[in-house]
């Protein structure tokens, strides 16, 4: 057995929440508001519902093959070569996504707290931590996550509450000024980022101690994480208004910067940065774990641990090479990411689900 650890369905739910919040917590408000403007919160509601469909889709596929990862059952469904290709796509996607998050991480820290430090320094530290956690197995990742996530959620709620004095409801009016189209466009962004990315959990739920609860755990996590994202977007809109939200790189940071209580608690945006370090760590860990495990299974290795060090170097190097500059990053994220992420996120699992049902594979029939 490649991974001896077992995780509970609750741990998966919490991991899902961290994964959804991961890099989205800072980037989503401006990404959604760029097309949906003041209706970004409506987009969020739509995408939460649509996101559950994405999760439900790949979770159903995984439920048909309990105890097997995407890379393992893709060969069963599509045959040796096509299955290998599907596994390769998923493995590449996890590597690419992981690199992008590492890059976001470096960009963000260089722009805020570590302005004079080369980006490779914080990036390599976080990759070392991720590799350290991944080496210890999925069980440890789930436990670290459980140690941190309650504080993160508490922090989000506190920051929401502290922002109330700055909020004005007229900033999200008028509702649906430009019709439905921009709202849908905004929600598509969120379906691609972060919902389509959650497909990497097909590499994690095989290690559930009660495989029957996988889908429920993922959907619960998807809803809870989506709700938190919704509150973050709503709060940003109410505090800053759509125009400022779009213009800023990290609008959430700006809203926190505005918090000022009795002239004592002020400029606490560094705490948000800390939160982002934790959540980003979890997201990169899930990507990295999926990558090394997928690669080990593609290559038919007995253990994924020898791959951790080279894979860490690879992910770090890729994160430095993946963009030339921030403009390119924004362009890629807004224009290319949605169709790109949809291939492994929705199309591939849906196709495989259809093929599996037609070929009558899998231990358990899905409902419907």
């Amino acid at each position, binding site marked *: 057995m490649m991974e001896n650890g077992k995780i509970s369905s609750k741990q998966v739910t919490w991991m899902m929440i961290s994964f959804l919040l991961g890099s989205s917590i800072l980037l989503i408000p401006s990404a959604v508001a760029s097309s949906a403007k003041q209706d970004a919160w409506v987009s969020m509601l739509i995408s939460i519902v649509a996101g559950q469909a994405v999760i439900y889709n790949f979770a159903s596929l995984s439920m048909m093959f309990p105890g097997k990862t995407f890379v393992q059952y893709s060969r069963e469904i599509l045959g040796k070569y096509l299955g290998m290709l599907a596994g390769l796509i998923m493995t590449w996607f996890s590597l690419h996504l992981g690199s992008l998050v590492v890059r976001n991480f470096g960009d963000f820290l260089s722009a805020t*707290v*570590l302005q004079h430090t080369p980006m490779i320094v914080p990036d390599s*530290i976080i990759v070392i931590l991720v590799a350290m956690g991944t080496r210890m197995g999925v069980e*440890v*990742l789930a*436990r*670290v996550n459980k140690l941190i996530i309650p504080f993160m959620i508490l922090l989000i709620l506190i920051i929401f509450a502290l922002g109330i004095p700055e909020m004005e409801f007229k900033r999200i009016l008028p509702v649906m000024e430009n019709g439905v189209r921009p709202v849908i466009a905004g929600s598509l962004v969120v379906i691609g980022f972060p919902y389509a990315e959650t497909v990497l959990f097909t590499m994690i739920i095989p290690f559930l101690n009660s495989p029957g609860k996988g889908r429920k755990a993922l959907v619960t996590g998807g809803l809870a994480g989506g709700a938190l994202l919704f509150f973050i977007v709503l709060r940003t809109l109410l505090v800053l208004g759509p125009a400022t939200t779009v213009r800023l790189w990290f609008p959430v940071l700006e809203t926190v910067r505005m918090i000022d209580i009795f*002239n004592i608690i002020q400029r606490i945006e560094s705490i948000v940065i*800390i939160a982002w370090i934790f959540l980003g760590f979890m997201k990169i860990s899930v990507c990295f774990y999926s990558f090394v495990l997928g690669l080990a299974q593609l290559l038919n290795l007995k253990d994924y641990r020898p791959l951790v060090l080279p894979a860490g170097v690879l992910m770090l190097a890729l994160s430095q090479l993946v963009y030339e500059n921030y403009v390119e990053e924004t362009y890629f994220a807004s224009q290319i990411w949605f169709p790109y992420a949809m291939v492994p996120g929705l199309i591939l699992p849906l196709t495989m689900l259809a093929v599996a049902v037609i070929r009558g594979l899998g231990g358990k029939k899905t409902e419907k």
Partner: protein
Amino acid sequence: MSRLVKKYMRKRNRGKKDSPKENEKAGNRQAYEMEELEKMPVSDRLAENLDILKGVLGHNSDVVFRTFRIGLADRAEAVVVYVDGMIEKKIISAEIIKPLMLESRMAGMDCQKEQLLDLVENSGITASEVKSTAFMGDVIAGVLYGDAALLIDGLGTGLAIDVKGWQTRSIEEPPSEVLVRGPREGFTETLRTNITLIRRKLRSPDLFFRDIQVGRKTNTSVTIAYINGLADSSLVAEVISRISRIDIDGILESSYLEEFIEDSPYSPFPQILHTERPDKVAAALLEGRVAILTDGTPVALVAPAPFITFMQSPEDYYERYFLSTAIRWVRYTAFVISLVLPSLYIAITTFHQEMIPTRLLISLAAAREGVPFPALVEALLMEFTFEALREAGIRLPRAVGQAVSIVGALVIGQAAIQANIVSPLMVIVVAVTGIASFMNPAFNIALTMRLLRFPMMLLAGTLGLFGVMTGILAILIHLAGLRSFGVPYMDSISPFHPGDMKDVAIRAPWWAMDRRPADISSKNRRRQSSGLKPAPPDPGGNKG
């Protein structure tokens, strides 16, 4: 016993084979190998036995050979061998020599040689504990552990009579674990006393004590205590197998054992709880844990010990639960402070000045104006001084110790600030950190925090808050992967057990804490019947 002696002798022989000449030289002093002795039967002839015993033990000034004639079987010659100082001389004279030498004669008992053993063992010696053995090895081991060996001419059997009695410390309150309310007794250096202290608290036939001998030279008795039915049998087996694995020349303190049996030897975090309090051990046994008592030290080990057990003091359970809950939270806060406060101070004053309120920033800047060092150097300097003072305070005699604290308070506190070497705020930070680290009920985890504080400060000085957070993250990853006898170290919190929160997040009143910790005692979790919450009597049967 015998297995260990064998192991001991195997090792000895290996050493001897390499240097046969040395063996010859030492031959006079110790004519027999222990291996031979182990298998060597007690001879019929007393002279032969005596030769062997004198060869092995005779060169010791504290070993006494007392020869006499017993009043039985034609005045057979007998010898009592014991180590002076380890035995009660009165017992030897009154319970062994007197009945055999005089009273048997007066009672007119006499017998044939065949009945001699039965008569001596069952009608002669009046001491309470007598073991008969046919091998010389057991006789010698008995003598070295405070037994008196009785050998009689014509008998192929040796008798080991328990006459142990040596100077011991009386039962006192352990100075490192003082409580305001609660029992005032602590363990001593004598294993038997310690076992008694536990037995007196748990008068149940389910309380089991299992003995293992460890140490080739010290032959230290190690006792594993557990409650049968509460402690997982696999846990008990694991503890026993981990201790039996140890092959070392000597065990002088339970920390020797601790380092041999913990799960992750490279972790800075302690994975086994240690205590000198019998009540703490009894409470742990009632939760399904296993205690390890070592002869020669008052410190008992308790395993498995996840992180949260290091945060709990017995006093939490003896005081009212509201207060205990509040104190627990102060303790948790202090625990975090003792790890991160200096590093947070360094990070914020060096990298994130914007987080400091303006007025405080101004006064801070004014105070730091004359200080030539960066905050990191300042903090390292002060922390080092503090650690030095603390260490000096422990070592010095009490009278001089006060001088040290005066030097510390005046020189460090006052003069260093006036000389502009450190800022006043830094002194406050270091002092608060020091006090916070003393708040911990478990000394060993406070030591861990002291140690980890320094890398955290370096991280803070180089990378600011980001460095602090990566440090915390690294510690959390380590903690999440750590185990104590198979139980996850962060048990109750992650993996999360809602029921355990009654003894983690709060200290629930006793009538509400109806279950044992989930992962410690998985078989038998209920510790009391339900519905025990007290209420005032119903007045006259009226409802409302």
